[in-house]
């Protein structure tokens, strides 16, 4: 269903991440998105920050609260791009500081990609 690379990444995420991604891609349910997104983040941040992430709010800041530097952010972005079939723009990502901002941006990109006009424009 997914590329080998994404399957390998999902295998290293917390249990339930892959299933949540599949469910989200099928039904667009926001709670599935939440589970999948936090799973990807847990896989990419240091163990010391796992509890903060899992118990924290959308106001958590990537760098200050979750120890995510710019290189980790690239790895996280690659995971989300592969999973959602979207392309993220570097300049936009650099502007985002909190978990909530990133999640909102991901959903926006995903919805744009799946909007009727976007699908129509891809029809040969």
């Amino acid at each position, binding site marked *: 269903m997914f590329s080998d690379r994404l399957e390998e990444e999902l295998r*290293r995420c917390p249990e339930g991440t892959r299933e949540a991604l599949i469910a989200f891609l099928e039904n667009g349910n926001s709670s599935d998105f939440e589970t999948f997104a936090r799973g990807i983040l847990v896989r990419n941040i240091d163990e010391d920050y796992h509890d903060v992430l899992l118990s924290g709010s959308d106001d958590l800041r990537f760098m200050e609260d979750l120890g995510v530097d710019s290189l980790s952010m690239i790895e996280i972005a690659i995971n989300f791009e592969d999973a959602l079939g979207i392309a993220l723009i570097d300049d936009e990502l650099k502007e985002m500081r909190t978990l909530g901002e990133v999640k909102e941006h991901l959903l926006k990109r995903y919805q744009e990609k799946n909007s009727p006009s976007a699908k129509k424009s891809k029809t040969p």
Partner: protein
Amino acid sequence: MERKRVLVTGFGLVCPLGYNSDTILQKLSQQEHGFMILPEFANFKTSTVSVGTRIPGFSTESSHSEDWSNPGGRKYRKEVLRGLNPHVYYALQATEEALISSGLQREDIAEDDSTGLFTASAGSTSSLYQNLEQMHRDGVRRTNPLGVASSVTGTLSYNLGAYFKITGSSCGFASACASSAHALGFGFDTIALGRQKRILVVSGEDGDLNAVLPFAGMHALSTADDPDEASLPFDQRRKGFVGSGGAVTMILEEADTALQRGAPIFGEVLGWGQASDGYSPVIPHPEGRGILRSMQLALASASRCRDDIDYINAHATGTPVGDIAEGKAIAELLGERSTEVPVSSTKALTGHPLSMAGAMEVVLSLQAARAGFTPGTANLLQVDPKLPSLFLPRENLDKTPKCILSNSSGFGGANVSLVVEPHA
């Protein structure tokens, strides 16, 4: 300005013989080698090479560094692990061990402007191969962000400099198999000139298929299929070297600084020399022109003469041409003493770990001397008749060398010789 004395106050070694100094010394004293048949070598397309090495206690086979394990059970943070390749992983352990042996804490060297880091490695060909393969397969935007820093020559400096928070001098050396000897030599100079009080000399090599097997293309590797008879320096049965790897860290320290803190003293670097062959990109000068001159310069730098030498740890990897060229140079250096000064190659036990050979062999020589013996060349049963007359003991000698000359030679005809004195 008076030249500062440079002491060896710590070391850590991870090699095919083991990962702690006691085990390695025991194997050195009992002449136990670290070779084995590697299926990935033997089964590789058109390969005639089957013997290689693995690093005991470590697992670094996975393409994901988070899966790796080390014998000390040390855990590293995700941001540390992501930039690693096998030899940097080994070097973390070797450096931690070196600090322990030196009585230093990580806090003692962190953000200390008088502590520098000199490194030597050829980079990680496995990591480079993996990252480039990913880039070609998935595109540049899907390339590992740490792909460059984890692969290229210099990777040891990048990773260790950040991990140990080095703020003094930091640079790397790339003279192939003479690299760590160069790092030691320039580390010596840097301290002797008063520019740093302490230098960590760190070298490492992956020693895996992608690091070693390409040397089969130049027919430089041993094609023996018996690990007991694969590495045969100076022996007329030799067919090439056995590639190996691991990591070595030496702590060089300015004498007053070391004595003030009551540091253990394993030895002293007395001087060094370097000279080049100017002959071929890869083949040594047949008469050992460069290595002869590097030995002469090293003795002059150390204010020693040939009469002072008690032991020569030769570069001798087991290649047909290299051993003869070095043997001729040693005979010319020693003159009438050539039949009395013991000369040996510890690569008969360790294999040839490329860039880390020089520093590793200084460590092994100091360890042997401190334990009261002079290493022989294990398995040397049929001395090559093309060698000049030299004293090439097969078994370890029950004699403590006081002045040791250690040679290293690399591609491009780079030659380095170091003069060290063990301390009890």
